[in-house]
């Protein structure tokens, strides 16, 4: 929490005013019963109507002022709470924007989403609660206790019994119920698990006639959930009756002993009545405090998840005075090794190769042969462990990162478009791009054909993650988007797998003919996608098995030949 508190700065005034106003409101609420006792004891006893009116109006005034203070306090509290949550959310989002690929791999997408949504919201709510309840309840209790002791010290001693009694009762009930609530959550997860599974697997369930089987499975878990819920309830249910017994027993004790004092003349009727009001206020505050602690537990989990994000540092650091110019698109790997953070074995070992500017390089190999890892080192998405990667003759570590990534365009294997239009997506590559430039890139990527068929052309809508386009169309659009950067190097990581072979060939041709100076690296599963590359690297278990042209590899690379053979008879085509 300490780490997050500085984010409150912008809303500090609210965060300070809210509790101050709250304390003042509580004072108002405490003073009203006291004034009432005066009306009864002095006004009635002296039959002084003027006094009654005067004090009565004072009470109403106090309550009105308290109301205004209370409303202001709430307003400030809400502003501070939501403001704080917004600041935290902004900070977390900005932090994530600075994350490296390695950071993104450690946190999963779904977990980052939860942190940005649920956890930030929870923090806002807990802040609001803290500013209100955490201040209100203890002060209410202290003030009311103070008033009770002022009115009648000997009578106020009942609190010495009832307060600890209530505290023990609450603690006992909650300590019994709390573990059950955790258990309840895991039972809920189990039930939801079956539902989720059946939603995604419904065709499997139906085709194997497993409806009854699944229902039985669900019933078991549903029963389990109910049993834990019933058990938790059986404890929690004691809270209110016990609270009421303690409150009313205290009232009865006060009535009995206070009444005797009235007869003796050491206490007045008004005092006794106001005392009863204070009893409720003191004991109710205790319940509020315990509720607050319950909610704090929920908040602390969120805080630690947020802090975890904020404490994460990207391991990719920019040099001072980085280079912002590039000579050409040559690439060289000099004795490169790479290891994923948290992994014990090197993913890439002793990689050495050079490519000339404008050359086309193909990379092929089975899954897990680290093809993607290899190319991700070029735009410095990960840092090498040993050796160096050079682009345009300069170590990638010496470049300004933003500049480097603008010059080395990367079309990711798991790619996505963003909701908006085709134009807004293309502008990701170049904010100031003209329509002509966009159309040219679309043409190179063989996407203009289908885009121009839309009535609204570039303004055609893109739904979330581009779900309204087919796999092949999406891939062509993402290639076009990368071309918008007018890069020196472009890397296609299995980016044409859903594109038919004719179109694939057209894309390759466009790259060769229209963008002769751009170094092109193509990772593919299909030999046909890389067969015409100037050179091809065959990756095997993190090493370069062989490198050469298609014909050279057909001569001397057993792995390449095996792949070629299997694809010859394996895939429709050729």
């Amino acid at each position: 929490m300490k780490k997050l508190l500085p984010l409150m700065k912008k809303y500090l005034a609210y965060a300070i005013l809210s509790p101050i106003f709250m304390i003042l409101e509580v004072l108002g609420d405490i003073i009203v019963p006291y004034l009432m006792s005066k009306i009864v004891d002095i006004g009635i006893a002296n039959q002084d109507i003027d006094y009654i009116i005067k004090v009565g109006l004072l009470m109403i005034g106090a309550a009105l002022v308290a109301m205004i203070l209370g409303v202001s306090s709430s307003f400030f509290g809400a502003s501070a709470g939501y403001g704080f949550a917004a600041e935290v959310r902004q900070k977390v989002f900005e932090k994530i924007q600075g994350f490296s690929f390695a950071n993104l791999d450690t946190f999963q997408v779904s977990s980052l989403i939860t942190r940005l949504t649920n956890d930030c919201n929870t923090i806002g709510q807990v802040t609001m609660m803290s500013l209100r309840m955490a201040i209100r309840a203890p002060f209410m209790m202290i003030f009311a206790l103070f008033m009770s002791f002022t009115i009648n010290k000997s009578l106020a001693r009942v609190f010495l019994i009832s307060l600890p009694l209530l505290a023990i009762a609450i603690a006992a009930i909650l300590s019994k119920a709390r573990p059950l609530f955790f258990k309840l959550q895991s039972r809920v997860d189990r039930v939801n698990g079956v539902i989720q599974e059946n939603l995604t697997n419904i065709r499997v369930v139906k085709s194997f006639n497993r409806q009854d089987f699944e229902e039985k499975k669900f019933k078991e878990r549903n029963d389990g959930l109910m049993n834990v819920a019933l058990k938790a309830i059986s404890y929690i249910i004691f809270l209110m009756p016990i609270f009421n017994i303690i409150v009313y027993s205290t009232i009865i004790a006060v009535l009995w002993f206070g009444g005797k004092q009235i007869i003796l003349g050491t206490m007045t009727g008004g005092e006794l009545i106001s005392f009863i009001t204070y009893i409720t206020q003191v004991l109710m505050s205790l319940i509020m405090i315990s509720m607050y602690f319950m909610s704090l537990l929920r908040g602390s989990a969120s805080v630690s998840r947020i802090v975890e994000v904020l404490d994460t540092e990207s391991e990719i650091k920019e040099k001072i005075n980085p280079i912002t110019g590039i000579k050409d698109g040559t690439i060289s790997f000099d004795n490169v090794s790479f290891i994923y953070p948290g992994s014990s074995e090197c993913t890439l070992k002793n990689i050495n190769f050079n490519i000339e500017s404008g050359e086309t390089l193909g990379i092929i190999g089975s899954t897990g042969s680290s093809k993607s890892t290899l190319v991700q080192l070029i735009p410095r998405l990960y840092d090498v462990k040993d050796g160096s990667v050079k682009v345009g003759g300069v170590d990638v570590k010496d470049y300004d990162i933003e500049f480097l990534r603008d010059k080395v365009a990367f079309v990711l294997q798991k790619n996505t478009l963003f909701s908006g239009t085709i134009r807004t997506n293309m502008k990701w590559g170049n904010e100031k791009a003209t329509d002509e430039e966009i159309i040219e890139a679309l043409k190179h990527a063989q996407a203009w054909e289908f885009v121009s068929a839309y009535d609204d052309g570039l303004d055609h809508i893109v739904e979330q993650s581009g779900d309204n386009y087919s796999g092949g169309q999406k891939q062509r659009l993402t290639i076009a988007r990368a071309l918008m950067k007018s890069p020196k190097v472009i890397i296609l990581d299995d980016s044409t797998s859903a594109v038919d072979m004719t179109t694939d060939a057209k894309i390759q041709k466009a790259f060769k003919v229209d963008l002769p100076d751009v170094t092109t690296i193509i990772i593919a599963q299909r030999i046909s996608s890389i067969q015409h590359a100037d050179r091809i690297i065959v990756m095997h278990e993190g090493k370069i098995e062989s490198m050469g042209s298609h014909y050279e590899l057909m001569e001397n690379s057993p792995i390449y030949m095996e792949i070629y053979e299997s694809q010859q008879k394996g895939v429709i085509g050729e």
Partner: protein
Amino acid sequence: MMDKKNKAAFKPKNPKMTLLRLFSYYRYYKGLFIFGILSIILASLGEVAANGMLSPIIDVFVSGGNINDALRFILIMAGFVLLIALGQYMGNRTMARLAQKIIHKIREEMFAHMEKLPVSYFDTHSHGELMSTFTNDVDMLNQSLEQAVSQILVSIVTVIGTFIMMIIISPILTLVVAIMLILMFVIIKYIGSKSANYFRNQQLRLADMNGYIEEMMSGQKVVKVFNYEERAIEDFRGRNDELRKSSSKASTFGVMLMPIMGNLTFILYSVIAMLGSFLVIKNTLSVGNIAAFLQFTRTISRPITMVSNQLNTLFAALAGAERIFSILDEEVEKDEGDVSLVIDCNGKGNHCWKVPKADGNFENIPIKGYVTFKDVDFGYVAEKQVLKNINLYAKPGQKIAFVGSTGAGKTTITNLINRFYEINDGAILYDGVDIRRINKFDLRSTMSIVLQDVHLFEGTVADNIRYGRLDASDEEVEEAAKLANADYFIKHLPQGYDTMLTVDGQNLSQGERQLLSIARAAIADPEILILDEATSSVDTRTEKLISEGMDKLMEGRTTFVIAHRMSTVRDSNAIMVLEQGEIIERGNHDELMAQKGRYYSLNAGTIELD
């Protein structure tokens, strides 16, 4: 989708009907329900009475009366207190338990109903939406049933009881209280209507924000390679600020309610103290009466505040209940089949269709695996026909391959054979029997299906294979795995066949999942096999294992395959080339290649396959 859901989330369309239907669940527990309500009523009345006792007790002391009278009154009051505690314990416990049982029942009904819904339902409803109804809506309903029902009851009884007591003590002061309460109601209503608008606005902003976060986090790596971070941060800042403003507004009205109601109670308290004192001076009221009245101002305003606080939740819960009921009201998969399966009808392990005849007798038709499509027309929606005039004939053990570009209707055809969807026109015959006459359960138990996207279940590897036949022995499971070429990789898993799979088998590779799904289909030993070959890229070795496994599985069964691999197509007895829902070419590989038509160009790789 988010927006649509959030707009609908707070306003039930027909609250009265929904409420009635919800309460109808209590009918299973009539006795308990009545007992619970009576207990709660008793507790509330006890509270009113206990507070009423303040009046005589204090009067005895103030007027210097007999202390024994005071003791007697105090004992009576203690009796009422016991009543409160007892009533509250019994009442709350009963109602909370009832709520759990009802939610349990609703959940069970929902799940059972979901299992019976036709596949088309899941095409038109997103998993997210259904999941949210199952979790969020049920949860909300749970909370409301647990608390709201008894709280509303308590409020009603307390308010009525207190009013009766107050009228007995002092009609004039009661009038004052009534006026103040009406004022409170007006304020609550005003704030409620104000905050409802802001609340809705906040929900819209929240949905917008969540959608944005989801999209950006999923595409975060793309953001990085495009240096889009700064622009993303700016974009985010705008949305974040909108959310903050709308949230502050929405909640201010919400949290204002508490201090306003709390202090209005104090104003009422002051007014009662003042007016009460006048009346005492005029000798129409006692000091004890004031004490009781002051206590009443608190007991009467508390339940009102509580209920008004819960009103938003209550409405949201009702809207959720409506969505729950709308799932329960969905029509289930129809099955009017009168033809059933007879296992081992000739004592030689062969199965038969038991077909009822017009004369009341039955005819046993041996199951061989003949499948005939006769002029089949189909559309997912009536307006749009997906398949037109499909005719085909498969002999037992034959392999029929479907090829064609995306959207040509390949998957649709296979989904008709096991009646995931019902055809609009024509007929599909299985060993000469119209499949619409065959009991669905029996029909599907003679078929296995291997889908392109493999879905597995939480459980062990063996459990997942056994999903194809629940009573399969361990040996049979292993045999099936061997046939599917899955045995090798399973034996290399940490616990072999007992290795636990996480949700949907995410701890296996794509290829391994496919091998498992082949084993699962193999163990069912079906007459008919439906295969949707995967296109996803797996490495060469696994690819080889998969195709071998598939080939072994297909041996001797009538197989319909949506083919992507050349070898599968070449080996097929017949290839159906589909385009826009029609079979445009048919024949074996050599015949079709010779035609130089669509199939030929598919082979030349000029058409995009899905």
